[in-house]
């Protein structure tokens, strides 16, 4: 059991998303950095898709009400257990009464969201096949809302005795993708791509894009060269997915993120491929990003590469857990 001690603004319970209820108007929700959630779960021997806590605002503090193992992934927040500094992307053990504090994200490749995993996952009810918090409609997660001070959350398997004290090379280092020193994202051109002026298409690939302050789990609003359509486009409402880059009349693109609605009508310039959404989920407000044009074969290969990294993590964890007790990497 853990108790939230800080005003945990915008921290939510998330798993890998609610994937099968789009036809009822229900978006997917789910972790903004799915790799961090999956890896954190694997470190504890959980299913990769167990629910964890996604933390976007700091400082964040929780007290462990009982002895419990846990894993920290995602943004390196200079975590401390009481006064003891903790490594990021690592499994740890807390004693009853200890307080975990996450500070502002730090490091050369500053990320923006930390993920806290507990043994067996966060124990909240599954709703429509997922434990992710669905903000619009207020269901899933913990009482269908963001966490707040005083909330108490349970681990599904709190007594699990598992080896801790080992960790991972973060995927930002293991699976890097940068262009001119900026985080880069691969984009598959969308249905209306050719409906934009050639100069706008060139500018999209060549330019830097800033993630504006009007960016959250619903969508990232970007600022850069205006993307001009050859002629105005009015579309019929249709299904969309996280990663879709819509261009409203202003010409400034909006990338749909995990809490995006499942349908829309703005022209679609392209889609950030599923394999790269975690990179975007960690890109801080105010940071600049670049886009790289890709094709179907490369995008599918990228997804396989991501899965291969997770499989490698699972093998490493299995080795650690089968080794003699007391020996930690």
């Amino acid at each position: 059991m853990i108790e939230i001690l800080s005003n945990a603004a915008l921290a939510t319970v998330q798993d890998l998303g609610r994937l099968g209820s789009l036809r009822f108007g229900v978006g997917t929700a789910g972790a903004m950095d799915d790799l961090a959630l999956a890896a954190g779960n694997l470190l504890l021997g959980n299913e990769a898709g167990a629910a964890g806590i996604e933390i976007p605002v700091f400082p964040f503090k929780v007290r462990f009400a009982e002895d419990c193992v846990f894993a920290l992934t995602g943004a390196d927040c200079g975590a401390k257990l009481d006064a003891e500094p903790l490594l990021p992307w690592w499994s740890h053990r807390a004693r009853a009464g200890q307080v975990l504090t996450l500070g502002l994200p730090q490091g050369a490749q500053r990320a923006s969201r930390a993920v806290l995993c507990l043994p067996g996952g966060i124990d909240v009810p599954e709703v429509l096949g997922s434990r992710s918090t669905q903000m619009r409609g207020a269901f899933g997660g913990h009482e269908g809302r963001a966490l707040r001070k005083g909330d108490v959350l349970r681990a599904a398997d709190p007594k699990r005795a598992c080896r801790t004290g080992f960790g991972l090379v973060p995927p930002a280092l293991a699976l890097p993708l940068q262009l001119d020193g900026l985080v880069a994202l691969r984009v598959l051109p969308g249905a209306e791509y050719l409906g934009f002026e050639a100069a706008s298409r060139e500018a999209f690939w060549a330019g830097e894009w800033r993630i504006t302050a009007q960016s959250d789990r619903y969508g990232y609003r970007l600022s850069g060269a205006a993307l001009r359509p050859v002629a105005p486009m009015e579309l019929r409402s249709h299904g969309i997915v996280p990663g879709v880059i819509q261009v409203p009349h202003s010409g400034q693109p909006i990338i749909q993120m995990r809490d995006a609605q499942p349908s829309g009508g703005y022209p679609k310039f392209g889609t950030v491929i599923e394999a790269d959404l975690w990179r975007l989920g960690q890109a801080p407000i105010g940071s600049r990003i670049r886009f790289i044009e890709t094709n179907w074969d490369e995008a599918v290969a990228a997804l396989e590469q991501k899965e291969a990294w997770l499989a490698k993590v699972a093998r490493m964890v299995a080795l650690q857990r089968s080794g003699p007790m007391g020996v930690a990497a």
Partner: protein
Amino acid sequence: MSLSTTGPTPTVSLLGTTALLFEAPGALAFASQQRIWALAQEAAGWPEVREAVPGMNNLMLSFVRPPRTLDALTARLAAAWEAVTPLTREGRVVELPVRYGGAGGPHMADVVAHTGLSVEQIVELHSAPLYPVYALGSHPGYCYLGGMDPRIATPRRPVPVLSIPGGAVSIGGAQTGVSASAGPSGWNTIGSTTMTFFDPVRDPPATLQPGDRIRFLVEGIEP
């Protein structure tokens, strides 16, 4: 890659590696929607398809995992579209009492200003049709409706409203709808109703299904 206006043949486009979008050709039509429903029912059973999600004369197919090549799937989709029998759904008729205008319809004045009609004329035109539910989307339980009288069409608001309440009856361009829960909206709210459209623990969770029809009953008109 296709342009937005639908041409003489169906188009297929990619939504990353997560899904593809099939768009029916021609003008927005109820008959096309019946074929979309039939296509959705068939495609939902294909092994690579996680979910078949109808939109307005289009269909999104999300993948269990992206197929290595798309040719077989798009060919099967094109063939199925040619072969389907339109799905006639004798859905339920749901009557929704609406209080038009007043505090629950804060943008009625904008619709009056745009259309040049009186409040009474707008209410009469809005409450006359039996609106078919084409598809669900936007937010849990929200219905896309067809059949609004074009005389009361009103452009979306220049600046979206940060939050309109659940049950808000609104007009956005040539479409009308009822919000199923509180949230932001760029549409013009002209009235309110108290229907519950979504309950996640029910099966199915949405109250209305494609093929159901909605009639708005005039419960009152407030100044």
